[in-house]
Protein backbone atom coordinates (compact mmCIF):
# COMPACT_ATOMS: atom_id res chain seq x y z
CA UNK A 1 0.00 0.00 0.00
CA UNK A 2 1.09 3.50 -0.73
CA UNK A 3 2.00 5.26 2.50
CA UNK A 4 1.13 8.64 1.00
CA UNK A 5 -2.45 7.52 0.43
CA UNK A 6 -2.76 6.42 4.05
CA UNK A 7 -1.23 9.66 5.33
CA UNK A 8 -3.44 11.84 3.12
CA UNK A 9 -6.62 9.98 4.00
CA UNK A 10 -5.86 10.33 7.70
CA UNK A 11 -5.26 14.10 7.46
CA UNK A 12 -8.90 14.39 6.44
CA UNK A 13 -10.36 12.54 9.42
CA UNK A 14 -10.40 15.35 11.99
CA UNK A 15 -11.85 18.00 9.72
CA UNK A 16 -14.37 15.51 8.37
CA UNK A 17 -15.73 14.67 11.84
CA UNK A 18 -15.94 18.35 12.80
CA UNK A 19 -17.64 19.31 9.53
CA UNK A 20 -20.21 16.49 9.79
CA UNK A 21 -21.26 17.33 13.33
CA UNK A 22 -21.33 21.10 12.76
CA UNK A 23 -23.27 20.90 9.51
CA UNK A 24 -25.80 18.46 11.00
CA UNK A 25 -26.35 20.54 14.11
CA UNK A 26 -26.57 23.90 12.33
CA UNK A 27 -28.90 22.59 9.63
CA UNK A 28 -31.09 21.27 12.46
CA UNK A 29 -30.99 24.61 14.27
CA UNK A 30 -31.91 26.44 11.07
CA UNK A 31 -34.84 24.08 10.42
CA UNK A 32 -35.98 24.48 14.04
CA UNK A 33 -35.94 28.25 13.64
CA UNK A 34 -38.06 28.00 10.49
CA UNK A 35 -40.55 25.46 11.79
CA UNK A 36 -40.58 26.32 15.52
CA UNK A 37 -39.88 22.73 16.53
CA UNK A 38 -36.96 23.30 18.86
CA UNK A 39 -35.02 21.10 19.68
CA UNK A 40 -36.31 18.28 17.45
CA UNK A 41 -34.33 18.92 14.27
CA UNK A 42 -31.19 20.01 16.11
CA UNK A 43 -30.98 16.65 17.87
CA UNK A 44 -31.90 14.87 14.63
CA UNK A 45 -29.26 16.80 12.70
CA UNK A 46 -26.66 16.09 15.36
CA UNK A 47 -27.43 12.36 15.20
CA UNK A 48 -27.33 12.31 11.39
CA UNK A 49 -24.03 14.21 11.53
CA UNK A 50 -22.59 11.70 14.00
CA UNK A 51 -23.72 8.73 11.89
CA UNK A 52 -22.22 10.24 8.73
CA UNK A 53 -19.01 11.02 10.65
CA UNK A 54 -18.69 7.48 11.98
CA UNK A 55 -19.51 5.95 8.60
CA UNK A 56 -17.09 8.28 6.78
CA UNK A 57 -14.24 7.61 9.19
CA UNK A 58 -14.91 3.87 8.93
CA UNK A 59 -14.70 4.19 5.13
CA UNK A 60 -11.44 6.13 5.41
CA UNK A 61 -9.68 3.67 7.69
CA UNK A 62 -11.20 0.45 6.35
CA UNK A 63 -8.51 -0.02 3.67
CA UNK A 64 -5.82 0.42 6.30
CA UNK A 65 -7.43 -2.16 8.60
CA UNK A 66 -7.98 -4.54 5.69
CA UNK A 67 -4.32 -4.49 4.75
CA UNK A 68 -3.22 -5.23 8.27
CA UNK A 69 -5.50 -8.25 8.44
CA UNK A 70 -4.21 -9.48 5.08
CA UNK A 71 -0.68 -9.31 6.39
CA UNK A 72 -1.58 -11.16 9.58
CA UNK A 73 -3.42 -13.86 7.65
CA UNK A 74 -0.76 -14.22 5.04
Amino acid at each position, binding site marked *: *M*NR*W*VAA*LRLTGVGFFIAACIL*IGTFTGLWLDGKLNTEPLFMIGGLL*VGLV*VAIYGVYRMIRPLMG*NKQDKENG
Partner: protein
Amino acid sequence: MAERKRGCLGCSFPILIIIAVVFLALFVIGFLAGPIGQNMIGDVGLPDWMKVPSPEPHLPAPELFSVFGLPITNTILASWITVIVLVVISYVVTRRMKIVPSRLQTIFEALLGWLFDLCKSIAGDKNARRFYPVIATIFLYVLFNAWLSLVPGFGSIELIEHKPIPENAHIEIIPAEGDKPEHKVVLVDHKEYEIINVDGKEMIEVRHELIRGANTDVNTPLALAFISFFFVAYFGLKSLGIGWLRQYFNFGPFFRSFGNIFKGKFDFMGVFAGVIEIIVGFLELLSRFITVISFTFRLFGNMTAGEILLLITAFLIPWILALPFYGLELLIGAIQAFIFAGLTLVFVTMAVTPHEGEAY
Protein backbone atom coordinates in the same frame (compact mmCIF):
# COMPACT_ATOMS: atom_id res chain seq x y z
CA MET B 1 44.99 23.51 -1.27
CA ALA B 2 43.78 26.71 0.30
CA GLU B 3 43.78 26.83 4.03
CA ARG B 4 40.31 26.32 5.41
CA LYS B 5 39.06 29.40 7.23
CA ARG B 6 37.73 28.93 10.73
CA GLY B 7 34.09 29.76 11.07
CA CYS B 8 30.59 28.46 10.97
CA LEU B 9 27.78 28.41 8.35
CA GLY B 10 30.12 29.82 5.71
CA CYS B 11 30.86 32.99 7.73
CA SER B 12 33.95 33.85 9.72
CA PHE B 13 33.54 34.36 13.47
CA PRO B 14 33.75 38.20 13.48
CA ILE B 15 30.88 38.39 10.96
CA LEU B 16 28.84 35.89 12.97
CA ILE B 17 29.39 37.96 16.10
CA ILE B 18 28.31 41.14 14.29
CA ILE B 19 25.15 39.40 13.02
CA ALA B 20 24.38 38.12 16.53
CA VAL B 21 24.88 41.57 18.05
CA VAL B 22 22.61 43.18 15.43
CA PHE B 23 19.92 40.55 16.08
CA LEU B 24 20.20 41.03 19.83
CA ALA B 25 20.00 44.83 19.47
CA LEU B 26 16.93 44.54 17.23
CA PHE B 27 15.37 42.12 19.71
CA VAL B 28 15.94 44.48 22.64
CA ILE B 29 14.62 47.52 20.74
CA GLY B 30 11.69 45.47 19.46
CA PHE B 31 10.94 44.28 22.98
CA LEU B 32 10.98 47.86 24.28
CA ALA B 33 8.81 49.11 21.41
CA GLY B 34 6.25 46.31 21.70
CA PRO B 35 3.37 46.21 24.17
CA ILE B 36 5.05 43.61 26.43
CA GLY B 37 8.06 45.83 27.05
CA GLN B 38 5.88 48.94 27.33
CA ASN B 39 3.86 47.28 30.08
CA MET B 40 6.85 45.83 31.95
CA ILE B 41 9.33 48.68 31.76
CA GLY B 42 7.20 51.63 30.74
CA ASP B 43 7.79 54.19 28.02
CA VAL B 44 11.53 54.65 27.48
CA GLY B 45 11.07 57.54 25.07
CA LEU B 46 11.23 55.70 21.76
CA PRO B 47 10.09 57.74 18.75
CA ASP B 48 6.45 57.30 17.69
CA TRP B 49 7.20 55.58 14.36
CA MET B 50 8.74 52.69 16.25
CA LYS B 51 5.55 51.92 18.14
CA VAL B 52 3.39 49.33 16.42
CA PRO B 53 -0.35 49.99 16.20
CA SER B 54 -2.51 47.14 17.49
CA PRO B 55 -3.40 44.70 14.70
CA GLU B 56 -6.91 44.41 13.31
CA PRO B 57 -7.49 41.14 11.50
CA HIS B 58 -10.47 41.30 9.10
CA LEU B 59 -12.19 38.16 7.93
CA PRO B 60 -14.37 39.40 5.04
CA ALA B 61 -12.35 40.78 2.15
CA PRO B 62 -13.24 44.42 1.45
CA GLU B 63 -14.30 45.46 -2.04
CA LEU B 64 -11.71 47.78 -3.60
CA PHE B 65 -13.47 48.59 -6.86
CA SER B 66 -15.81 46.90 -9.29
CA VAL B 67 -15.47 45.88 -12.93
CA PHE B 68 -18.82 45.66 -14.81
CA GLY B 69 -20.61 45.32 -11.48
CA LEU B 70 -18.30 42.52 -10.36
CA PRO B 71 -16.75 43.36 -7.00
CA ILE B 72 -12.95 43.13 -6.97
CA THR B 73 -11.64 42.47 -3.47
CA ASN B 74 -8.08 42.66 -2.18
CA THR B 75 -7.86 38.85 -2.14
CA ILE B 76 -8.80 38.70 -5.83
CA LEU B 77 -5.96 41.13 -6.54
CA ALA B 78 -3.61 38.81 -4.63
CA SER B 79 -4.76 35.78 -6.61
CA TRP B 80 -4.16 37.69 -9.87
CA ILE B 81 -0.65 38.44 -8.68
CA THR B 82 -0.17 34.73 -7.96
CA VAL B 83 -1.34 33.84 -11.46
CA ILE B 84 0.96 36.45 -13.03
CA VAL B 85 3.94 35.23 -10.96
CA LEU B 86 3.26 31.62 -12.00
CA VAL B 87 2.96 32.58 -15.67
CA VAL B 88 6.17 34.61 -15.55
CA ILE B 89 8.05 31.83 -13.74
CA SER B 90 6.90 29.18 -16.21
CA TYR B 91 7.87 31.44 -19.12
CA VAL B 92 11.31 32.15 -17.66
CA VAL B 93 11.95 28.52 -16.76
CA THR B 94 10.82 27.03 -20.08
CA ARG B 95 12.15 29.76 -22.38
CA ARG B 96 15.59 28.25 -22.72
CA MET B 97 15.44 24.68 -21.53
CA LYS B 98 18.81 23.03 -21.45
CA ILE B 99 20.02 19.45 -21.09
CA VAL B 100 22.28 20.74 -18.34
CA PRO B 101 19.70 22.80 -16.47
CA SER B 102 20.15 26.19 -14.87
CA ARG B 103 19.51 26.61 -11.17
CA LEU B 104 15.89 27.76 -11.54
CA GLN B 105 15.16 24.99 -14.05
CA THR B 106 16.62 22.44 -11.63
CA ILE B 107 14.39 23.61 -8.78
CA PHE B 108 11.23 23.39 -10.86
CA GLU B 109 12.22 20.12 -12.52
CA ALA B 110 12.79 18.61 -9.08
CA LEU B 111 9.49 19.97 -7.70
CA LEU B 112 7.33 18.96 -10.66
CA GLY B 113 9.17 15.67 -11.08
CA TRP B 114 8.52 14.80 -7.45
CA LEU B 115 4.84 15.67 -7.91
CA PHE B 116 4.63 13.52 -11.04
CA ASP B 117 6.24 10.58 -9.26
CA LEU B 118 3.69 11.00 -6.47
CA CYS B 119 0.87 10.97 -9.05
CA LYS B 120 2.30 7.81 -10.60
CA SER B 121 2.67 6.04 -7.27
CA ILE B 122 -0.94 6.79 -6.29
CA ALA B 123 -2.86 6.76 -9.59
CA GLY B 124 -0.70 4.46 -11.70
CA ASP B 125 1.18 5.25 -14.92
CA LYS B 126 -1.75 5.77 -17.28
CA ASN B 127 -3.96 7.81 -14.98
CA ALA B 128 -1.07 9.92 -13.67
CA ARG B 129 -0.72 11.55 -17.08
CA ARG B 130 -4.43 12.42 -17.14
CA PHE B 131 -4.62 13.84 -13.62
CA TYR B 132 -1.23 15.52 -13.36
CA PRO B 133 -2.11 18.90 -14.97
CA VAL B 134 -4.98 19.61 -12.59
CA ILE B 135 -3.18 18.25 -9.50
CA ALA B 136 -0.02 20.26 -10.24
CA THR B 137 -2.08 23.41 -10.91
CA ILE B 138 -3.88 23.11 -7.58
CA PHE B 139 -0.59 22.44 -5.80
CA LEU B 140 1.28 25.38 -7.35
CA TYR B 141 -1.63 27.79 -6.98
CA VAL B 142 -2.20 27.04 -3.30
CA LEU B 143 1.54 27.01 -2.60
CA PHE B 144 2.22 30.35 -4.28
CA ASN B 145 -0.87 31.94 -2.74
CA ALA B 146 0.46 30.96 0.67
CA TRP B 147 4.09 31.90 0.06
CA LEU B 148 3.42 35.18 -1.74
CA SER B 149 1.28 36.37 1.17
CA LEU B 150 4.48 36.36 3.27
CA VAL B 151 6.14 38.88 0.94
CA PRO B 152 6.30 42.40 2.44
CA GLY B 153 3.53 44.51 0.93
CA PHE B 154 0.87 41.84 1.33
CA GLY B 155 -1.35 43.01 4.17
CA SER B 156 0.89 45.96 4.98
CA ILE B 157 -0.07 48.51 2.30
CA GLU B 158 -3.23 50.28 3.33
CA LEU B 159 -5.81 52.16 1.32
CA ILE B 160 -7.43 54.98 3.29
CA GLU B 161 -10.92 55.94 2.28
CA HIS B 162 -13.09 58.72 3.67
CA LYS B 163 -16.76 57.97 3.82
CA PRO B 164 -19.70 60.05 5.05
CA ILE B 165 -21.22 58.99 8.37
CA PRO B 166 -24.28 56.81 7.75
CA GLU B 167 -27.60 58.21 8.92
CA ASN B 168 -29.02 57.00 12.24
CA ALA B 169 -25.54 55.85 13.31
CA HIS B 170 -24.86 56.00 17.02
CA ILE B 171 -22.14 58.58 17.72
CA GLU B 172 -20.23 58.35 20.99
CA ILE B 173 -17.97 60.99 22.51
CA ILE B 174 -14.82 59.61 24.12
CA PRO B 175 -13.37 61.98 26.77
CA ALA B 176 -9.72 63.04 26.60
CA GLU B 177 -7.28 60.55 28.11
CA GLY B 178 -3.50 60.90 28.38
CA ASP B 179 -2.10 62.36 25.13
CA LYS B 180 -5.31 61.75 23.23
CA PRO B 181 -7.77 64.70 23.03
CA GLU B 182 -11.51 64.29 23.14
CA HIS B 183 -12.80 62.55 20.01
CA LYS B 184 -15.95 61.03 18.58
CA VAL B 185 -16.42 57.47 17.42
CA VAL B 186 -19.25 55.85 15.51
CA LEU B 187 -20.33 52.22 15.32
CA VAL B 188 -20.89 51.00 11.72
CA ASP B 189 -21.53 47.30 11.05
CA HIS B 190 -20.27 46.33 14.53
CA LYS B 191 -16.99 48.18 13.95
CA GLU B 192 -15.80 51.32 15.62
CA TYR B 193 -14.57 54.18 13.42
CA GLU B 194 -13.06 57.43 14.56
CA ILE B 195 -14.73 60.56 13.20
CA ILE B 196 -12.28 63.01 11.64
CA ASN B 197 -12.62 66.37 10.02
CA VAL B 198 -12.04 66.46 6.26
CA ASP B 199 -12.49 69.88 4.59
CA GLY B 200 -14.84 70.97 7.35
CA LYS B 201 -17.02 67.87 7.03
CA GLU B 202 -17.22 65.07 9.54
CA MET B 203 -16.23 61.79 7.92
CA ILE B 204 -15.22 58.31 8.98
CA GLU B 205 -11.86 56.89 7.98
CA VAL B 206 -11.96 53.35 6.58
CA ARG B 207 -8.68 51.51 6.11
CA HIS B 208 -8.36 48.51 3.77
CA GLU B 209 -5.35 46.36 3.02
CA LEU B 210 -4.54 46.74 -0.68
CA ILE B 211 -3.63 43.06 -1.12
CA ARG B 212 -4.12 40.15 1.21
CA GLY B 213 -3.24 36.45 0.78
CA ALA B 214 -5.91 34.87 -1.44
CA ASN B 215 -6.20 31.75 0.72
CA THR B 216 -7.36 33.86 3.67
CA ASP B 217 -10.64 34.66 1.89
CA VAL B 218 -13.03 31.73 2.33
CA ASN B 219 -14.19 32.07 -1.29
CA THR B 220 -10.86 31.01 -2.78
CA PRO B 221 -10.61 27.68 -0.90
CA LEU B 222 -14.32 27.11 -1.59
CA ALA B 223 -13.79 27.64 -5.33
CA LEU B 224 -10.80 25.28 -5.27
CA ALA B 225 -12.83 22.69 -3.35
CA PHE B 226 -15.57 22.88 -6.00
CA ILE B 227 -13.00 22.52 -8.77
CA SER B 228 -11.65 19.45 -6.99
CA PHE B 229 -15.20 18.07 -6.53
CA PHE B 230 -16.19 18.51 -10.19
CA PHE B 231 -12.84 17.16 -11.35
CA VAL B 232 -13.47 13.96 -9.36
CA ALA B 233 -17.06 13.74 -10.58
CA TYR B 234 -16.05 14.27 -14.22
CA PHE B 235 -13.43 11.51 -14.22
CA GLY B 236 -15.68 9.22 -12.18
CA LEU B 237 -18.52 9.58 -14.70
CA LYS B 238 -16.16 9.35 -17.66
CA SER B 239 -14.46 6.18 -16.46
CA LEU B 240 -17.30 4.26 -14.83
CA GLY B 241 -20.33 5.95 -16.46
CA ILE B 242 -23.58 5.44 -14.57
CA GLY B 243 -21.79 2.91 -12.37
CA TRP B 244 -20.14 5.84 -10.58
CA LEU B 245 -23.52 7.31 -9.66
CA ARG B 246 -24.69 3.89 -8.42
CA GLN B 247 -22.60 4.17 -5.29
CA TYR B 248 -24.69 7.21 -4.32
CA PHE B 249 -28.13 6.25 -5.68
CA ASN B 250 -28.30 2.50 -5.29
CA PHE B 251 -32.03 1.77 -5.66
CA GLY B 252 -31.53 -1.38 -7.78
CA PRO B 253 -31.45 -4.09 -5.08
CA PHE B 254 -34.45 -2.58 -3.28
CA PHE B 255 -36.67 -2.44 -6.36
CA ARG B 256 -35.60 -5.93 -7.46
CA SER B 257 -36.54 -7.42 -4.08
CA PHE B 258 -39.72 -5.35 -4.04
CA GLY B 259 -40.59 -6.58 -7.52
CA ASN B 260 -40.13 -10.14 -6.36
CA ILE B 261 -42.98 -9.68 -3.87
CA PHE B 262 -45.39 -9.24 -6.78
CA LYS B 263 -44.03 -12.40 -8.34
CA GLY B 264 -45.02 -14.26 -5.20
CA LYS B 265 -41.55 -14.59 -3.68
CA PHE B 266 -41.50 -12.71 -0.42
CA ASP B 267 -37.88 -11.85 0.26
CA PHE B 268 -37.87 -9.83 3.47
CA MET B 269 -34.08 -9.86 3.86
CA GLY B 270 -33.68 -8.69 0.27
CA VAL B 271 -35.95 -5.67 0.84
CA PHE B 272 -34.15 -4.91 4.09
CA ALA B 273 -30.74 -5.13 2.42
CA GLY B 274 -32.07 -2.86 -0.36
CA VAL B 275 -33.12 -0.22 2.17
CA ILE B 276 -29.68 -0.47 3.81
CA GLU B 277 -28.04 0.03 0.39
CA ILE B 278 -30.10 3.19 -0.18
CA ILE B 279 -29.14 4.56 3.24
CA VAL B 280 -25.46 3.75 2.64
CA GLY B 281 -25.65 5.54 -0.72
CA PHE B 282 -27.20 8.56 0.98
CA LEU B 283 -24.43 8.59 3.61
CA GLU B 284 -21.86 8.32 0.83
CA LEU B 285 -23.43 11.30 -0.98
CA LEU B 286 -23.52 13.37 2.22
CA SER B 287 -19.89 12.56 2.99
CA ARG B 288 -18.90 13.63 -0.57
CA PHE B 289 -20.49 17.04 -0.01
CA ILE B 290 -19.03 17.38 3.46
CA THR B 291 -15.61 16.71 1.96
CA VAL B 292 -16.01 19.96 -0.01
CA ILE B 293 -16.66 21.82 3.25
CA SER B 294 -13.77 20.16 5.07
CA PHE B 295 -11.41 20.93 2.13
CA THR B 296 -12.51 24.57 2.27
CA PHE B 297 -12.20 25.13 5.97
CA ARG B 298 -8.93 23.26 6.38
CA LEU B 299 -7.17 25.55 3.91
CA PHE B 300 -9.00 28.71 4.98
CA GLY B 301 -8.51 28.01 8.70
CA ASN B 302 -4.83 27.20 8.46
CA MET B 303 -4.01 30.20 6.28
CA THR B 304 -6.07 32.70 8.27
CA ALA B 305 -4.70 31.42 11.57
CA GLY B 306 -1.18 31.80 10.16
CA GLU B 307 -1.88 35.37 9.05
CA ILE B 308 -3.27 36.31 12.48
CA LEU B 309 -0.36 34.57 14.24
CA LEU B 310 2.11 36.65 12.23
CA LEU B 311 0.17 39.85 12.96
CA ILE B 312 0.15 39.11 16.69
CA THR B 313 3.83 38.12 16.94
CA ALA B 314 4.88 41.14 14.90
CA PHE B 315 2.82 43.27 17.27
CA LEU B 316 4.03 41.77 20.58
CA ILE B 317 7.78 41.96 19.86
CA PRO B 318 8.33 43.69 16.50
CA TRP B 319 10.94 42.58 13.93
CA ILE B 320 12.60 39.54 15.49
CA LEU B 321 9.90 37.41 17.09
CA ALA B 322 7.95 37.05 13.84
CA LEU B 323 10.93 35.51 12.00
CA PRO B 324 10.62 31.89 13.25
CA PHE B 325 6.88 32.08 12.59
CA TYR B 326 7.57 33.11 8.99
CA GLY B 327 9.54 29.85 8.71
CA LEU B 328 6.58 27.99 10.20
CA GLU B 329 4.23 29.62 7.69
CA LEU B 330 6.47 28.55 4.79
CA LEU B 331 6.16 24.97 6.04
CA ILE B 332 2.40 25.20 6.62
CA GLY B 333 1.84 26.66 3.14
CA ALA B 334 3.72 23.74 1.58
CA ILE B 335 1.87 21.18 3.71
CA GLN B 336 -1.55 22.64 2.91
CA ALA B 337 -0.79 22.73 -0.81
CA PHE B 338 0.36 19.12 -0.64
CA ILE B 339 -2.73 18.01 1.32
CA PHE B 340 -5.15 19.79 -1.03
CA ALA B 341 -3.56 18.43 -4.19
CA GLY B 342 -2.89 14.99 -2.68
CA LEU B 343 -6.41 14.46 -1.35
CA THR B 344 -7.87 15.47 -4.72
CA LEU B 345 -5.56 12.91 -6.31
CA VAL B 346 -6.62 10.18 -3.85
CA PHE B 347 -10.32 10.91 -4.42
CA VAL B 348 -10.04 11.00 -8.20
CA THR B 349 -8.07 7.74 -8.17
CA MET B 350 -10.79 6.15 -6.06
CA ALA B 351 -13.43 7.49 -8.43
CA VAL B 352 -11.89 5.88 -11.53
CA THR B 353 -11.17 2.53 -9.86
CA PRO B 354 -14.11 0.12 -10.34
CA HIS B 355 -13.63 -1.59 -6.98
CA GLU B 356 -12.48 0.96 -4.53
CA GLY B 357 -10.26 -1.41 -2.57
CA GLU B 358 -7.98 -1.73 -5.60
CA ALA B 359 -7.03 1.92 -5.37
CA TYR B 360 -4.82 1.14 -2.44
